[in-house]
């Protein structure tokens, strides 16, 4: 009697998970399917229409503004994530050895994480005006966005790298110094190689956060026509949206999927070899 009850409960659990998953993936699936359709609108009178790669062709040959936005997004994402990873790692090491003021630094970086995006955006907006007024001409646009995104994502890198640092032997750095390496060399040849895993996760997180940002970018992109994917799609809502966006969405989804699967396979393999070594 009890076993049938628990079996029923198990079925219920599976059903629940499947329903939630279906809700998550149905919209994405719809876009993927219709990325192969020639129809300009989803759910038009012609239904799916003909199977074609036309939208993919259009994306790469005849959607200059969408392609520009994609390029800008990648440039801002990669450069800001690189800066964030570098500063974040450096800071994690510094904070690990810092005695006084650690709490204050952690509090300030927590503000960056939990602050409402719109307030952060306003802050950068006002800062650009303030800096210009005191004689440092700051122009809102690509460079400013890279700086802003780097500042916003650095705390996330610190949050990912710091835990790995605490697993290290605290004397490693000093051992490097004792063996004659300078502070920089000791950092980069002794500490950093041990943190690579955390740095890669931190970079990936910073990069995704940068790609996902809308609010800060929208208020700080300036008037020179620098658009990212998010601001471009948002701006073209009032007009009609380029259907090639379906092809772009599909490509991004596939890249994310493949990257995450590879990342997890590598991580699991590493875990298994580590467990073997421990055994």
């Amino acid at each position, binding site marked *: 009697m009890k076993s049938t009850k628990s079996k029923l409960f*198990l079925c219920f*659990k599976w059903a*629940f*998970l499947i329903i*939630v*998953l279906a809700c*998550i993936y*149905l*919209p*994405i699936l*719809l*876009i993927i399917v*219709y990325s192969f359709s020639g129809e300009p609108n*989803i759910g038009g009178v012609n239904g799916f229409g003909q199977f074609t790669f036309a939208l993919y062709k259009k994306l790469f040959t005849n959607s200059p503004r969408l392609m520009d936005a994609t390029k800008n997004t990648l440039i801002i994402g990669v450069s800001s994530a690189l800066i964030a990873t570098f*500063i974040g790692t*450096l*800071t994690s*090491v*510094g*904070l690990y*050895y810092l005695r006084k*003021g650690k709490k204050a*630094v952690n509090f*300030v*970086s927590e503000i*960056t994480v*939990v*602050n*409402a*995006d*719109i*307030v*952060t*955006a*306003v*802050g950068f*907006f*006002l*800062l650009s005006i303030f800096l210009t007024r005191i004689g440092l001409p700051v122009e809102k646009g690509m460079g400013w966005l890279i700086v802003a995104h780097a*500042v916003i994502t650095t705390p996330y890198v610190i949050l990912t790298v710091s835990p790995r640092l605490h697993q290290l032997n605290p004397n490693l*750095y000093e051992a490097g110094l004792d063996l004659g390496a300078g*502070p920089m060399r000791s*950092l980069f040849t002794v500490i950093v190689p041990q943190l690579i895993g955390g740095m890669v996760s931190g970079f990936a997180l910073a990069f*995704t956060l940068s*790609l996902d940002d*809308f*609010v800060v970018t*929208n*208020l700080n992109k300036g008037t020179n026509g620098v658009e990212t*994917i*998010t601001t471009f*799609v*948002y701006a073209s*809502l009032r007009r009609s949206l380029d259907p090639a*966006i379906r092809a772009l*969405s599909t490509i*991004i989804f596939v890249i*994310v999927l493949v990257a*995450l699967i590879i990342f*997890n396979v590598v991580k699991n393999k590493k875990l298994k070899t580590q467990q073997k070594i421990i055994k």
Partner: protein
Amino acid sequence: MPESSETKKTLKKKIVFKPSYFSFPYILLCAIFVVLPLILVFVYAFIDDKTGHFTFSNFAEVFTSANLILLLRTIGIALLTTLICLLIAYPTALILASSPFNKFVILALLFIIPMWMNFVLRVIALKELLTLIGVKNGLFASVIGMVYDFLPFMLLPIYTVLTDMDKSYSEAASDLGANGFKTFVKVTLPLSAKGIASGITMVFMPVFSAYAITDMLGNNNTTLIGKIINELFINSGTWGVGSAFSFVLLLLVFGTMILSNLVGKSPKAKGGAK
């Protein structure tokens, strides 16, 4: 002991550069790019846009009835989104962390994957689906969009806490005669409070800024405060009011920060006391 302190002293003399100095660039960066902007928001909130003098009038503008309704509506949508996210995410996390399901790592991953994809593209996809099944733009569609976007952010912290939880606590509870429901209410739920708290902070405040979603899925009655602030800054001459708005939001942020810290700490404190 005296020997080691001596070697430390000689080390300190030799090395002028301490490893803690590596954190100094970031501290400088924080001062310029995190603290200074907040000060600027604070200062601008008390400056009259036309005259440049000190004034409280910006706050008077913020608390006009129309704007107050806007603020309350935003808080309402944020609460609703947080609540629905919690009601979906908690059972999902509980199931994923429980026994036959926790063997499949890929299953949990499936729930998190969308988080890594651009949210505007995801919401556009949702909009297409909603239009297809006949759901019109409005409050309902907006809240669906919000939940769709923020669900992983609620799920991940709760799932992490539940998988890290020591199973022996709930086993002990059932050994001592508590039934499944009682074990959940008395043991699992309080122990996962920290995950719930961080999930709530990851959803509640971000909704205030998520005006892209309500612009895609909502109508005139779902405008969020974030959009108004953005517009106040795009138009010149209204930065003071915009800053005052931002300042009010900032106070809300600090409020939720303190609240979530309290909730996160409470189960530990209770456990210690007992």
